[in-house]
């Protein structure tokens, strides 16, 4: 009997397909210098590489959260049995956070609940006090006296451990560099530290160090405390924030994947054929883009909700339903947002079709299809690449707004939007419950900011106008 049973959700499959696609693309690009050149330029951008480091951390968490399984239960009557609950690898890693539920709100690193409760004391009287948490700081004998010191020592231990790891990474990097350049360890370190390397390793190490400074103490404290507090039903906020990452990443990437074929095929066709095909495609995207985005998305999502409710029997588990809703949201976001890129690609194709090499291809009798595939597509790819990375952060932000409006992901799915939505009402509480909101916003800010910085680096590297004029606009 297997200790677990893989449970592939639809979005998992698509995510891993995407990962495979990216690897394929990397492999394809490596062998072709003209494709490698812009990426090498991205690699030389300090802000881009630091952002990529942070993004890589997010992607790692998202991928861990994209392997779902059902744990084995003790066998019954000799037959293998598996839990009905679907959990992911990330859930497994974060088990200390997931399973330590409190009763209700508690502040970050608190040892007591946030609300007073009536408790019976030993001598039978009833008093109202802030009860101790079941898990947060439960190991402390006297929280009042020990808490500060305990947090400091644990945090310091975590910091020390992570610093050692960071130093290890730095030394490893130097070692690789000595092997490449043949210089000594010390020279390699000096090169990196004085920023003389082609790839800005100093910036990468700084970003990594900054990440470590945060991750170390948090990881050391997380098993014993609720580092970011707990929410209304007592769930750890840090756990929720980490789970939200996958939702954001899935929406940001899969929606652009849906949008891409529409924009690419229709845009290039409109620009290349001109005439009535262009008219039809233009009419089509003017019509779609004339509907204000949120309204179109809302209308489509409302209809999708009714559809899913009518066919409830197709989606037996909550996870499956939430997953299908997530995918449907991606499709809707993609279908409603391809018009902008399509317009850009049409313009570019209009320009390119008048170029001599296309005329030459015509003269040689190359078919329309082949001209579009071989001669037009590769030459508009920089626009596609820029649009892809630029759209990502917008989609992550849009998810939060849509969830607030009520047309976002399934309410049972943890996402930045649902976190903000449920925490919003607690602003009116006295004293205020701020940590859920703060956590969601900070995680979102980090993700979107690093995505934006990376997108800028990609744009600077791919946009021919910027390269010719010599650097950033």
């Amino acid at each position: 009997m297997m200790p677990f049973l893989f449970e592939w959700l639809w979005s998992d499959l698509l995510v891993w397909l995407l990962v495979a696609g990216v690897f394929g693309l990397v492999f394809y690009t490596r062998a072709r210098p003209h494709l490698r050149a812009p990426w090498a330029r991205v690699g030389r951008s300090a802000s881009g590489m630091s952002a990529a480091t942070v993004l890589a951390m997010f992607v790692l968490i998202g991928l861990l959260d994209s392997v779902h399984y059902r744990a084995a239960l003790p066998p019954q009557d000799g037959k293998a049995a598996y839990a009905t609950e679907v959990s992911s690898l990330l859930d497994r890693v974060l088990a200390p956070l997931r399973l330590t539920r409190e009763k209700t709100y508690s502040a970050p690193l608190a040892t007591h609940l946030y609300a007073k409760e009536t408790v019976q004391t030993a001598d039978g009287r009833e008093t109202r006090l802030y009860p101790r948490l079941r898990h947060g700081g439960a190991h402390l004998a006297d929280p009042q006296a020990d808490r500060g010191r305990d947090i400091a020592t644990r945090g310091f231990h975590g910091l020390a451990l992570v610093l050692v790891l960071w130093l290890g990474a730095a030394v490893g990097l130097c070692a690789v560099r000595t092997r490449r350049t043949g210089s000594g360890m010390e020279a390699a370190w000096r090169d990196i530290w004085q920023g003389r390397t082609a790839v800005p390793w100093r910036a990468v190490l700084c970003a990594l160090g900054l990440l470590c400074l945060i991750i170390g103490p948090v990881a050391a404290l997380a098993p014993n405390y609720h580092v970011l507090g707990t929410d209304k039903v007592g769930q750890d906020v840090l756990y929720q924030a980490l789970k939200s990452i996958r939702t954001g990443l899935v929406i940001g990437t899969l929606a652009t994947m849906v949008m891409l074929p529409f924009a690419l095929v229709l845009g290039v066709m409109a620009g290349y054929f001109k005439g009535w095909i262009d008219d039809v495609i233009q009419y089509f995207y003017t019509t779609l883009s004339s509907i204000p985005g949120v309204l179109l998305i809302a209308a489509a999502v409302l209809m999708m909700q009714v559809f899913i409710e009518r066919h409830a029997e197709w989606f037996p588990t909550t996870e499956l339903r939430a997953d299908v809703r997530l995918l449907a949201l991606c499709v809707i976001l993609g279908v409603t947002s391809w018009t902008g890129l399509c317009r850009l690609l049409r313009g570019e194709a209009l320009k390119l079709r008048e170029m001599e090499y296309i005329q030459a291809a015509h003269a040689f009798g190359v078919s329309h299809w082949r001209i579009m595939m071989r001669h037009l597509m590769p030459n508009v790819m920089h626009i596609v690449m820029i649009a892809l990375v630029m759209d990502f952060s917008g989609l992550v932000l849009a998810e939060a707004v849509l969830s607030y409006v009520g047309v976002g992901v399934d309410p049972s799915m943890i996402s930045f939007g649902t976190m903000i939505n449920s925490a919003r009402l607690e602003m009116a509480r006295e004293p205020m419950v701020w940590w859920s909101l703060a956590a969601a916003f900070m995680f979102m800010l980090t993700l979107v900011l690093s995505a934006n910085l990376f997108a800028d680096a990609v744009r600077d590297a791919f946009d021919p106008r910027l390269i010719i004029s010599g650097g950033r606009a």
Partner: protein
Amino acid sequence: MSAYIVRRLIYGVFVLLGVNVLTFALFFFVNTPDDMARAQLGLKRVTPEAVAKWKHERGYDKPLFINEKISGLGRVTETIFFDKSIRLFAFQFGASDQGRNIGYDISSRMWPSLAVQVPAFVIGLAVYITFALLMAFFRATYIDFWGVVLCVLMMSISALFYIIGGQYVFGKLWSLVPISGYDSGFNAIKFLLLPVLIGVISGIGGNARWYRTIFLEEINKDYVRTARAKGLSETRVLFRHVLQNAMIPILTGVVVVIPLLFLGALITESFFGIPGLGSYTIDAIRQQDFAIVRAMVFLGSVLYIIGLILTDISYTLVDPRVRFS
């Protein structure tokens, strides 16, 4: 010119027809009126009679395109398509699924939306262009660099954060303005200050950076070099020459949104409790009132098409070279 506008208007009508067919397909083919009735009445334990009654009250029990039972013009007019789609062209929005008159609601809720949106739009435009000009003036210096960093940071923050943070700081902490609500006449001003301010601030990042790119693109052109060579001061170059020539790309992005100001800002209005069209739409979405959503989709498209035509007209105003025939 007028012939061009007439042609654009006719094209606009065709686009609206497309929008109508699209929404009609979305609302009546993906799900039948029966499904909508069940979604509204609660999925379980709903009798067929209740569904039929719900449909009849709202006119959803007619045939989709052609009514076989009636002769003459009624064959086409007594259908769902005519009732729910074609009537929109005459701005007859009909009744919402809750039975309220949508046309009346829209005309009365339009004003609070405009009261927030117009000041936010005008002040915002002035602020964004000023910031962008400043960054362009100090280009390739530390002011420019940190200005761009600030812009990227500000555009990475969720709009929800600006609203919640603004409400907390200005409304709760400093008690300068009420957190939410609305009043009639001039009493509304104290309720409008914060939404307008937040509307402006939340747009700074993206917009200032966008205008800066436009200005920098102009600044590298030959006529700017000529102007400098003539000995004009840098401020004069920026304001007299660059700003004027950057008007076309600015107008492209700006004029098209002016008519859409009517629709209001969805989340701002709902957070601040402003009874405008934005909160109207959100409420309709939350209550799954399909009639209102359909009406707003149509209205939004009409306003967008008006915006496109206005954009074309505005080109002729700022650039004498542009002539439409």
